[in-house]
């Protein structure tokens, strides 16, 4: 059945001869393990192309969608985490094999005439493998990709004269955003892979030419059959793939940090392992010498590597080889030492650990929000996952702006001169306040706000009556923003509330609720819709208003926060945080 079809195809197209030529299986060399590095590199490239194509089916290159689509790959698609994990770690394996290939070529002096081009192509292949890894790193548009790309492109931008222009072209402007993603994406999926494929093809063609017509003076060996070569290459590839898959399984796929947030303050960006030594160089070089770390040293290393085949001709035979090996061993040793230092310095750095912990928490929170059916990535983009999360953003704003005077669950950042905001507006807060207004949790720390304390001393409410007042006031925070006091009071369940007359009698002599009680006995804030969004908003924007705490001495008043200091969206986040209106984090396991 198949044979006639193949015959027909061959007759019309000459397919068999084409195939035989493409596979050109004659060989003179003996099959050796050390010669499998190149073929394994090539097979890894095929694996990258395959998994990369799969990822492209779901990946969406823009600054608002990239992170969400990567999370979708990891969690919503069958085996998505595995495919992305293999893609990520096989890419790292390509970098390692590219390096091993060069080491082996150096050791066996395979840069020597007539193999100069094998050496140069090997260098270029390693460069391309690293570039693929670096461009791929940005694509999830998570904190890690964002900050390390920013650092790397800023380093490139520091090169005299051309640097700033190159940086602008690579980044797509001065700002990191959509154009950075689309450019890196184009480089990662088309430009670099095509270049790599071309170089790989050239490398293979060169290798073949030398195998069929071995350079003079090289033994032709016994020559192994192509099957032996194929088997060794396959076994070596299998071993590498097994290691890659082992890492993927052990780590549950590739990392995904919290979505990139250019405004986040404390993300501890660290480069991939193969750049750790450069990172450490940057840390130890003083600013005026930084070009030595970012340009001179790496540039010199690359230049020496490129020039090795030529040095080999200039220097007495053998000397260049010994020198080159010595230099490379020294470089590797130095890089290894620096990398180890980089890790050791981090390990001993408490601030790094704190920042890392914060980043982990942000990541877990972002992933939980994005995966929850009731939350999900907002249309504004993944950066807004956390900015629109009351628990993250609301709490953050509160800590920055409010905890200089207020405290949260007893914890503040300065001398406490205002109430504890934890659960402000809740029944619990209210009950506690009416029981013991003089506690520091409520008005104990507020100078000039003795009204409630005095009330407590003189109030004749029975416990059960107090309970009814609490019931009544606990309704205030949920009064909708578009309801006037009259409309609210005319609701049946309000008009008939048993707490209403008690409130009127006991609270209404000081507090104003329009249409219900006039106050007047002593100064007190207006209570209509107390604890609601609109009440808090007015308190934050105009604390000196007469219906808030304008009666306090100016130096005891809360400072106002205008929209420039706390945007209305941030204020909403704070209010929702105080009200507990957010996706509750899963209980820690």
């Amino acid at each position: 059945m198949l044979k006639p079809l193949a015959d027909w195809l061959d007759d019309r197209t000459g397919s068999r001869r084409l195939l035989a030529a493409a596979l050109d299986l004659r060989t003179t060399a003996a099959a050796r393990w050390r010669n499998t590095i190149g073929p394994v590199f090539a097979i890894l490239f095929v694996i990258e192309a395959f998994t990369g194509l799969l990822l492209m089916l779901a990946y969406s290159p823009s600054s608002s969608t990239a992170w969400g689509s990567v999370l979708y790959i990891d969690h919503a698609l069958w085996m998505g985490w595995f495919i992305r994990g293999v893609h990520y770690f096989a890419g790292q394996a390509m970098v390692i094999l590219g390096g091993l290939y060069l080491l082996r070529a150096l050791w066996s002096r395979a840069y020597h005439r007539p193999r100069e081009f094998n050496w140069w192509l090997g260098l270029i292949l390693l460069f391309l493998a690293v570039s693929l890894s670096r461009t791929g790193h940005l694509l999830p548009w998570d904190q890690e990709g964002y900050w390390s790309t920013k650092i790397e492109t800023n380093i490139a931008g520091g090169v005299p004269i051309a640097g700033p222009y190159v940086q602008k072209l690579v980044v797509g402007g001065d700002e990191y955003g959509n154009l950075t993603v689309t450019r890196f994406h184009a480089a990662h999926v088309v430009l670099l892979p095509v270049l790599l494929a071309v170089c790989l093809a050239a490398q293979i063609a060169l290798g073949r030419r030398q195998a069929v017509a071995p350079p003079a003076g090289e033994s032709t060996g016994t020559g192994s059959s192509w099957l032996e070569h194929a088997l060794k290459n396959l076994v070596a590839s299998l071993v590498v793939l097994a290691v890659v898959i082992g890492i993927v399984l052990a780590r549950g796929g590739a990392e995904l940090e919290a979505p990139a947030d250019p405004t986040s303050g404390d993300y501890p960006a660290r480069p991939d392992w193969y750049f750790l030594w450069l990172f450490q160089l940057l840390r130890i070089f003083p600013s005026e010498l930084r070009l030595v770390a970012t340009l001179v040293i790496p540039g010199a290393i690359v230049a020496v590597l490129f020039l090795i085949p030529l040095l080999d001709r200039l220097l007495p035979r053998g000397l260049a080889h010994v020198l080159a090996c010595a230099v490379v061993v020294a470089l590797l040793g130095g890089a290894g030492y620096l990398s180890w230092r980089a890790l050791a310095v981090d390990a001993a750095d408490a601030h790094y650990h704190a920042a890392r912990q914060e980043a982990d928490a942000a990541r877990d929170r972002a992933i939980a929000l994005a995966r929850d059916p009731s939350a999900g990535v907002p249309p504004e983009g993944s950066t807004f996952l956390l900015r629109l999360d009351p628990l993250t953003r609301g709490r953050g704003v509160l800590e920055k702006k409010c905890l200089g005077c207020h405290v949260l669950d007893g914890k503040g950042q300065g001398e406490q001169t205002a109430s504890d905001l934890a659960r402000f507006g809740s029944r619990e807060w209210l009950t506690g306040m009416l029981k013991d207004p003089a506690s520091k949790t409520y008005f104990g720390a507020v100078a000039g706000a003795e009204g409630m304390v005095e009330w407590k001393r003189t109030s004749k409410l029975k416990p059960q009556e107090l309970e009814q007042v609490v019931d009544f006031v606990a309704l205030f925070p949920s009064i909708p923003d578009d309801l006037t006091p009259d409309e609210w009071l005319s609701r049946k369940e309000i008009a008939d509330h048993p707490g209403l007359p008690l409130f009127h009698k006991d609270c209404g002599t000081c507090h104003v609720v329009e249409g219900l009680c006039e106050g007047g006995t002593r100064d007190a804030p207006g209570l209509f819709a107390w604890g609601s969004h609109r009440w808090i908003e007015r308190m934050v924007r105009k604390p000196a208003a007469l219906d808030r705490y304008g009666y306090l001495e100016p130096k005891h008043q809360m400072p106002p926060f205008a929209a420039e200091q706390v945007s209305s969206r941030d204020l909403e986040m704070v209010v929702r945080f105080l009200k507990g209106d957010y996706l509750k984090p899963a209980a820690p396991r």
Partner: protein
Amino acid sequence: MSRRDLLRRLVSICSAGLALPLAIPGLAYLLSPLKKGSGGSSYDALARLSDLKVGEPRAFAVIRDLRDAWVKYPRQPIGAVWLIRQPEGVDPPVVALTAECPHLGCAVALAADGKSFLCPCHNSVFGIDGKPQNAVSPRPMDPLDIQIAKGDDPEIRVKFERFRPQSDRRIPLA
């Protein structure tokens, strides 16, 4: 078995060992869209009875949170439904037809006469009861389940669903 055959066999085994651990997860990955959705559509309140006049179909948007892969759009129109009030005494008093054409899924509009439906894509014509009036569509417009509470001006609640186009039977998607 000769040494050559053994080698050949080993090469095949290794090739398979290399390809399968990637091909099988790759296939699963590709087939992900076939995953069962969490589905279970619910009823949405679209209108009140007083919004409708007998014999005058009106289109209403179904507003829901829309999940497009990883993005969640809060409260978006996800589809449209034609509501047609029936003459006095007919039960149920309202018929709901999805605006998605059973032919190939375009949005069905009201014809100029206001008394029939016309799909602008391939000119399917349907009567006000949803029956096809030419041979383009394989089946009538798809009726949707409806809930009408008691009371003088009840809410009309509709269970919005999608159906496979082109088939002559009504087969719910997902």
